[in-house]
């Protein structure tokens, strides 16, 4: 398995895979344009053609108790391989085939030691910052609706 080839990398790879899966597809298209203009892309073969299917979403009773099946979510996945045998995978929630393809491509490119540092800086870090900013904006909007209770003191006669 790929993770055994690079025993030090699962955590790093976990991070970039999450960043790619959570990114807007348009941002990945843009990143592809940048990467393409910076140099040749490897020739890839499909290990698994893009396919949309289902994951059953599990939850816990009371939030922390026994597991139960909440309902399904659509997921699109694919896998690509380059000439040296690196495997890139794409798994995104929803039905966006292009998003899964781009995720797999970048996962594969990021496994290339020569490209990694550049891609982390040029693609993954901005995606994380963007996601963080969006999350903070939403959280500040919610925080503006927080109730500040005050107690009315009865006037002393």
């Amino acid at each position, binding site marked *: *398995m*790929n*993770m055994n080839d690079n025993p030090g990398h*699962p955590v790093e790879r*976990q991070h970039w*895979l*999450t960043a790619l*899966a*959570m990114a807007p597809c348009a941002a990945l298209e843009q990143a592809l344009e940048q990467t393409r203009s910076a140099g040749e892309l490897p020739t890839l073969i499909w290990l698994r053609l893009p*396919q*949309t*299917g*289902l*994951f*059953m*979403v*599990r*939850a*816990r*009773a*009371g*939030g*922390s*108790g*026994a*597991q*139960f*099946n*909440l*309902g*399904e*979510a*659509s*997921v699109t*996945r694919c*896998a690509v391989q380059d000439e040296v045998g690196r*495997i890139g*995978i794409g*798994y*995104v*929630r*929803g*039905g966006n085939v292009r998003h899964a393809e781009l995720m797999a491509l970048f996962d594969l490119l990021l496994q290339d030691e020569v490209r990694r540092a550049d891609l982390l800086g040029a693609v993954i870090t901005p995606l994380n910052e963007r996601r963080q900013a969006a*999350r*903070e*904006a*939403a*959280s*500040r*909007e*919610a*925080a*503006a*609706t*927080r*109730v*500040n*209770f005050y107690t009315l003191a009865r006037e002393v006669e």
Partner: protein
Amino acid sequence: MYVAVKGGETAILNSHELLAAARRGDERVPEITPAQIRQQLRLAVARVMSEGSLYDEDLAALALKQAAGDQVEAIFLLRAYRTTLPRFGYSLPVDTSRMALRRRISAAFKDLPGGQVLGPTYDYTQRLLDFSLCEPSASPLPPRADEPLAEAMPRVSELLGHEGLMEEELPLPGDPAPVDLSREPLSFPADRATRLQNLARGDEGFLLAMGYSTQRGYANSHPFAGEIRMGEVALEIVPEELGFAITIGEITLTECQMINQFAGSSTVPPQFTRGYGLAFGEAERKSMAMALVDRALRAAELGEETTAPAQQPEFVLSHSDNVEASGFVQHLKLPHYVDFQSELELLRKMRNRHEGRMKVGAGGTAPTEVAAEENA
């Protein structure tokens, strides 16, 4: 006896055309797109995803357009579509304590850590029709606080936990995989995991009525809305290629922790017990109703007297699914011509007999003769 009935083909095809025209409406009005439905009718989309038991906003919006806004029909469309998709696997259990909160309130604790966050709610609107919405307007910019909410807010149910006043929710020994109702038929007795899956995709109106019945005295459990939270949680899976978990996206969930009085039993001291509701999307009414019904269905487990419909698993779980219910009610539209004909004949015979008896009582002919005459 079978009677082959043919014909109607042209009528059916023409009715499809008529349906499409009715769906489109007046062509001078712009056609609605699934993207508009997804963005501007998000609560309708949430209900279709929740009861269609499939989280996919685009498909749910399309189903709503196709069904001309008929929610149960849209739910049926989504359920039918999901059967065409392969099952890749199961997610890790979602962690609602790490939810990116957009709303979080408690009716039990005023000053809960993290505060009461109202979020986008209709609760404090005046429910007056807003005629300004008849005209398009610029999207409002909601105010932002200087600081975001805390990263993780404790669940209210954990606040009383350390005093032992609140029932604990712990994984079962060995944390077993739950029964999956999308794979196995419902059977009884149904454990809590099975009940929760059934309720999670159950009809909101049905659950609302059952929950309401418990409040009106049919299994009163004295509920408090301990906590309601809504926001985004990470969807984590373990891809078969990797062997470690990755986040592949987020889903919006609404969670309700209902707190209920419990007098205790011979083994358990008096404490608060809990009912749980969880639903896809912004679905507060649904998750509250679900929590009430979940708690009512725990009556037998808690040694309470079971007297009310909401406490009977066979009754509640067998009637909660609106795809099944709608199918069975609406199958009455299918041709029952032969059935009806035989009922008609039976009824005529019974009436003849009845008439005959009346005549015999009045000194008339024997009933068998009357029947023979009429059949001749």
